[in-house]
């Protein structure tokens, strides 16, 4: 394939630019220490082992807790329950509803009630077993729709409706009357598990000066520090959180889980405490992807022009709010797609239940509605007899039109450009469902656009810093954490390009609340874009400052100097003073440039609406075994329009990794509950894709930005998930002419469909 567009990087071109990650050698030699690899304090003292007593009931009132036998057990150094918390007892984001330790009520299996620090893990667990808790069981709220009924048992004061949304425009009734083709259906998406291989854990130790040092994987160290400080009534600066490197997160470690409990144990025992959840504990207590029930009704005219779209969403948020409200907001916004609807009505509700806790997960509410929306679009296209690609292209919003909430958005023509690329692709041009006896093949197409950053009113501002270290390294200091996305490489590429130095002059200082300013959360696909904007807007100022500092020792005027590779250079480019010598000449007066970026938000006064969108289209090819009902993803082509690719390795990894996760959501991954209990508690009962399940990937980067764009690269962290789940669903639908209504598409669903008499869908 030879793309006509100069900004298009083929898979081969991308691969040719891939280089080893800066941390590859250490990771390959097992020289990287993750938070859970620490068994001793910084001074080398063995850490105590922590264990948590979690609730065995999904919903119950706590009548009494007796810890006396645990306290008396030899080897036990601290036992904590809610009354041991000196300060804030609850945490949360938009809604503060999650107890650090439950005092009066438990709302899900594993909800922490007490914790122990002891000499060994065996003693800590034995002590937990000695804690007597008296419960009065409460009815278990399992179904999100029933949870919203007036007579339902309530989890929290104020009822089970955590959040609701509604928006729309146009003349819906008239549009429905005018429609030639109408598609109406109900869709379901399952609860997906993040499956990070490193379970939640780490070590907390007293710092010797009245504060704490917390080594725990997280996505926003400053926020973790604040929650723990508030809990202990400490000034925020006395809790230092080092949240990197991370053995996988995908959103699952964005909000705190057990850090406060570990901190409380360290605080009470005065010792370093190591706490790590076992995989079954992590399954119980970790957050999951929100399961959604989605009702959609959409219509178009005889020529295939979209006329109206209605969507009604109900999601199960589990026991605590965490990111639930923002996820429903995103689900609502992305239920519209990059399509032009003259009339629109979207509404959604989010219900508390006793089914664990749902929270942030790559794809963030959007992937659920995008699956349903893409099914609707494909079915309308089919009804009109127009191919899915042409139908989508015909119905795109204009690049400078308003966004899915009617808000002003940064102009972007990504959706059209990715469709243009795939239209020429051989897999699309030769797509015919093939029937080879036992196996059937099909190719599906999907298109998504997806937002960057948090919605309007969210924590979109960020601070990063550029500093000169005593050894002469130019440090880029930010609170973002490295969880595999190749942030260190991004810092090097952008730093060299925008600060004029060499990559070897740079050092990334990440994820440490004491060494870097608060950059906000490493979430919402925002880190690369923020570095791009921050360094781009302030790089010249930094270089000027270095020249001013170098001028006196060099005996020259600052404007005769330039900050370049290796150090300060003269107008002719000759190296005059290395950064190391410059740093040495400055002693303690080393420069730091603190950069504060204002929130980049839509000017429209619409709560939670986004300003920046990227786009992706994909072709998925499946082979369905009609004997076993198993669908195998054999090939996936993804065209991603996200502006300039900063780190080819990071970009490719995010696309392929995200896509495999989306394919897992579409094919195998689901975590059902019964009676408020997860029916799988480890990776033997919950099936994540293996190497044998991986397709042949072809990733195409559609670079370039509209003229005058000041936003820069769109985030790549999530959109791979967003595009893959609908694309795989479309492929199965194409292979079998199957009305795919729920994810994952399990073998029994496929066999049921194949057993159905012709035309009885």
């Amino acid at each position, binding site marked *: 394939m030879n793309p006509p567009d100069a900004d298009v990087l083929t898979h081969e071109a991308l691969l040719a630019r891939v280089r080893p*990650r800066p941390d*590859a050698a250490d990771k*390959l030699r097992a020289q990287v220490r993750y938070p859970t690899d620490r068994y001793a304090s910084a001074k080398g003292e063995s850490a105590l082992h922590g264990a948590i007593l979690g609730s065995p009931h999904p919903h119950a009132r706590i009548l009494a807790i007796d810890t006396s036998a645990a306290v008396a057990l030899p080897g036990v150094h601290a036992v904590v329950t809610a009354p041991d918390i000196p300060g804030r007892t609850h945490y949360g984001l938009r809604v503060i509803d999650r107890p650090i330790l439950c005092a009066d009520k438990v709302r899900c299996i594993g909800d922490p009630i007490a914790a122990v620090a002891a000499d060994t893990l065996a003693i800590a667990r034995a002590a937990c077993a000695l804690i007597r808790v008296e419960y009065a069981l409460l009815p278990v709220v399992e179904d999100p729709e029933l949870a919203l009924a007036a007579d339902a048992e309530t989890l929290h004061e104020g009822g089970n409706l955590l959040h609701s949304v509604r928006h729309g425009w146009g003349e819906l009734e008239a549009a429905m009357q005018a429609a030639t083709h109408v598609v109406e259906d109900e869709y379901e998406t399952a609860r997906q598990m993040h*499956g990070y*291989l490193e379970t939640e854990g780490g070590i907390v130790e007293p710092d010797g000066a009245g504060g704490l040092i917390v080594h725990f994987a997280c996505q926003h160290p400053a926020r973790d520090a604040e929650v723990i400080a508030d809990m202990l009534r400490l000034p925020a600066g006395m809790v230092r959180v080092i949240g990197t490197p991370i053995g996988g997160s995908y959103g699952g470690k964005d909000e705190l889980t057990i850090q406060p409990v570990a901190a409380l144990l360290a605080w009470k025992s005065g010792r370093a405490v190591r706490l790590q959840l076992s995989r079954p504990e992590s399954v119980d207590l970790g957050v999951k992807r929100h399961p959604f029930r989605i009702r959609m009704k959409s219509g178009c005219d005889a020529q295939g022009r979209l006329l109206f779209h209605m969507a009604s969403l109900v999601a199960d948020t589990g026991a605590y709010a965490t990111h639930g409200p923002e996820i429903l907001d995103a689900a609502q916004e992305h239920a519209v797609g990059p399509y032009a609807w003259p009339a629109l009505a979207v509404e959604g509700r989010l219900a508390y239940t006793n089914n664990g806790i749902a929270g942030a997960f790559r794809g963030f509410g959007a992937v659920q509605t995008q699956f349903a929306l893409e099914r609707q679009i494909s079915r309308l296209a089919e009804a009109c007899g127009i191919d899915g690609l042409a139908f989508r292209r015909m119905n795109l919003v204009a690049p400078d039109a308003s966004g899915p909430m009617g808000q002003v958005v940064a102009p972007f023509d990504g959706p059209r450009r990715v469709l243009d690329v795939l239209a020429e692709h051989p897999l699309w041009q030769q797509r015919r469902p093939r029937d080879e006896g036992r196996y059937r093949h099909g190719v599906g197409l999907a298109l998504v656009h997806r937002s960057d950053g948090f919605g309007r009113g969210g924590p979109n501002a960020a601070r990063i810093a550029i500093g000169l270290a005593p050894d002469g390294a130019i440090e880029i200091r930010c609170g973002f954490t490295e969880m595999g*996305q190749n942030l260190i490489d991004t810092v090097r590429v952008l730093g060299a390009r925008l600060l004029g130095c060499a990559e070897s002059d740079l050092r990334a200082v990440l994820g440490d609340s004491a060494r870097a300013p608060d950059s906000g959360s490493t979430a919402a696909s925002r880190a690369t874009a923020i570095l791009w904007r921050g360094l781009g807007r302030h790089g010249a100022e930094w270089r000027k400052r270095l020249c001013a500092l170098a001028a006196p020792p060099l005996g020259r005027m600052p404007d005769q100097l330039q900050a370049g590779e290796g150090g300060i250079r003269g107008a002719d480019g000759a190296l005059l003073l290395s950064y190391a010598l410059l740093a040495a000449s400055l002693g303690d007066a080393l420069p730091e440039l603190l950069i504060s970026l204002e929130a980049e938000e839509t000017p429209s006064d619409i709560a939670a609406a986004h300003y920046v969108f990227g786009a992706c289209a994909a072709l998925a090819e499946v082979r369905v075994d009609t004997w076993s009902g198993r669908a195998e993803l054999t090939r996936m082509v993804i065209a991603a329009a996200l502006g300039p690719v900063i780190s080819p390795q990071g970009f490719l990894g995010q696309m*392929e990794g995200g896509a495999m996760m989306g394919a897992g959501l579409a094919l195998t991954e689901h975590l059902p509950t019964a009676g408020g209990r997860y029916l799988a508690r480890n990776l033997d009962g919950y099936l994540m894709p293996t190497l044998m399940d*991986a397709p042949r990937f072809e990733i195409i980067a559609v670079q370039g930005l509209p003229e005058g764009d000041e936003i820069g690269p769109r985030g790549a962290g999530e959109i791979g998930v967003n595009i893959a789940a609908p694309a795989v669903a479309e492929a199965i639908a194409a292979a079998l002419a199957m009305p795919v209504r729920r994810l994952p598409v399990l073998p029994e669903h496929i066999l049921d469909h194949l057993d159905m008499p012709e035309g009885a869908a």
Partner: protein
Amino acid sequence: MMRIEFELNGEPRVLETPAERRLLAILREDFGLTGAKPGCEVGRCGACMVWLDDLPTNACLVMAWQLDGRSVTTVEAIAADPRSESVRAALAECGGLQCGYCTPGLVVTMTHLADCSPRPDAACARAQLAGNLCRCTGYGGIQRAVERLFPTADAGD
């Protein structure tokens, strides 16, 4: 408690430990060898892979009593072994690692496969590597590394 004599990374070791204690815990807690990672502790994810008598084995499934007289080689030793060089280079250059938590286990399995005589073909290597889960890469980079390291018998699809 039982007394166990075994070889760890080429060194003879003696251990007094409960018979049912897991090798994974012994490596991490008693010897400070944290390259083997706990992921699932039911032998499903492969993050704790070591060589037990030169065969890739999940350290979470080996109990102390099974160790007596055996030899254990961990990723710390394997990564320092020249036989792993081509594996590490392929994974680094093909983008076969991201967060890196599954990486030690992959190096342990892949180095074993690369050292087999004859070398398995790509299809066989893929099947063997199904025991090493990776949640970050989508296996794109790992697959490219496998193709580079292992000859493909059937060149077609």
